[in-house]
């Protein structure tokens, strides 16, 4: 929503800035103290984990921190896998090509062609494929040891992709027929006209405001919460096993088991969120190009 009201968003940031920085400093100090003195209090996960220290180009607008590097890694991985996978495609596929085809067909057949049909499916396939694999790969970094945070757990990727989805379905509708698009989205057929007084504002808000917001928040929150949960479980394990030790090691085993199960769960979430994001985009495009709905 912040994006829809740029002035407000700028004001909010300006207000938040000094406070943020002092808190960051306090937290950094806190962290240093913790590691050096090994105190006995429990340190839970913090939202600051999503704002790691900037490594390069600080303050230029091209700042690079750990999460940005993880995103680059995800992009490189995708480029390498798909470049190698499609470099020399054969009519009779090998094992690796089979996997690549399965992945690409998942988007092509199950989302693009099922919802949009052959023609529109093919038109919007590049966007949908990009969305699916970008979201999935950046989600899955959340459970890859050493990376341990999803590239989508910072608002940039969800927001950018949601806006692209937003622009795409509006473009699809307007390109097809502007009048029909706005009539269908704002004045749904089969409703007596006085009801439009209520329905039209609701439709306006739900179609043009709620959609991108929910797309962004659904993905972002899933990834943030997933990460916080994992950190919570593993930090607790560390606290029980290393800091308290003794009988608490049993509790540590329990929290570790939870952490492990949730790690598996996060794989599912990573796939599911990528699927939902792409599928919803396809549905929005379908609604925009539909003759009547």
């Amino acid at each position, binding site marked *: 929503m*912040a994006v829809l009201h740029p002035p407000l*968003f700028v004001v*909010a*940031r300006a207000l*938040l800035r000094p*406070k*943020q920085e002092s*808190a960051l400093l*306090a*937290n950094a100090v806190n962290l240093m103290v913790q590691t050096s003195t090994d105190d006995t209090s429990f340190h839970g996960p*913090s*939202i*600051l984990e*999503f*704002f790691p220290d900037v490594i390069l*180009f600080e303050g*230029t*607008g*091209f*700042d*690079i921190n750990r999460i*940005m590097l993880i*995103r*680059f890694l*995800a*992009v490189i991985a*995708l*480029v390498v896998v*798909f*470049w190698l*996978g*499609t*470099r020399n*495609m*054969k*009519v009779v596929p090998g094992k690796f090509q089979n996997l690549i*085809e399965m992945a*690409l067909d998942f988007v*092509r057949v199950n989302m693009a062609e099922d919802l949009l049909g052959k023609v529109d499916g093919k038109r919007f*396939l*590049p*966007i949908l*494929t*990009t969305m699916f*694999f*970008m979201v999935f790969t950046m989600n899955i970094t959340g459970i890859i040891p050493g990376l341990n945070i999803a*590239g989508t757990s*910072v*608002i*940039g*990727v969800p*927001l*950018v*992709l949601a806006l*692209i989805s937003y622009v795409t379905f509006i473009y699809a509708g307007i390109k097809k027929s502007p009048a029909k698009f706005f009539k269908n989205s704002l004045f749904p057929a089969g409703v007596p006209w006085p009801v439009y007084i209520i329905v039209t504002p609701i439709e306006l808000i739900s179609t043009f405001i709620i959609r991108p917001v929910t797309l962004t*928040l659904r993905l*972002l*929150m899933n990834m943030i*919460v997933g990460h*916080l949960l994992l950190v919570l479980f593993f930090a607790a394990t560390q606290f029980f096993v290393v800091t308290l030790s003794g009988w608490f090691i049993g509790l540590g085993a329990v929290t570790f088991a939870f952490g492990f199960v949730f790690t598996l769960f996060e794989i599912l979430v990573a796939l599911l969120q990528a699927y939902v994001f792409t599928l919803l985009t396809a549905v929005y495009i379908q609604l925009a190009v539909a003759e009547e709905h």
Partner: protein
Amino acid sequence: MLHALVAAAEEGATRNPLLPETYDIVWSLVCFVILLVLFWKLVLPKMQTMLEERTAAIEGNIAKADEAQRQAEAALEQYTAQLAEARQEAGSIRESAREDGKKIVAEARNQATVEAQRVTASAQAQIEAERQAALVSLRTEVGTLAIDLAGNVIGETLSDDARATAIVDRFLADLEASEKATN
């Protein structure tokens, strides 16, 4: 979920995860554009080409299979036709053989008949000739006998051949004439 986050944010950390940093947006866009180009210009066209080739290959194979099927059917038809023809030919050969056999038998029978007739004819001719010869010799003998008998009866030798012969001839001629008359 959001409440918990806001609470967590308010607790000590003061960064709002809903407010995007410029670099965050910039790098997200860069990532998206790179991946879009990758999929749009490289991966999906290759996939498309491959799928088209696969379709063509499958269609080609189906056409080839159809062709093979057609050829097999044609060969079978030809074979069946040949078989039928051979069977017919065998039949006709058998038929002609039977015919020939019949003809040969008939010819043989004919020949046999002709031979038999010929044998019969020649036998009859011989018999006739012998009869004639017998007749002639009989006539002479009967004449001689009759003359001898008559000579004995009348007691005189009728050895005058010329007269005897004339008497016999006359007698025989009378006999023949009376035979003819009775006939």
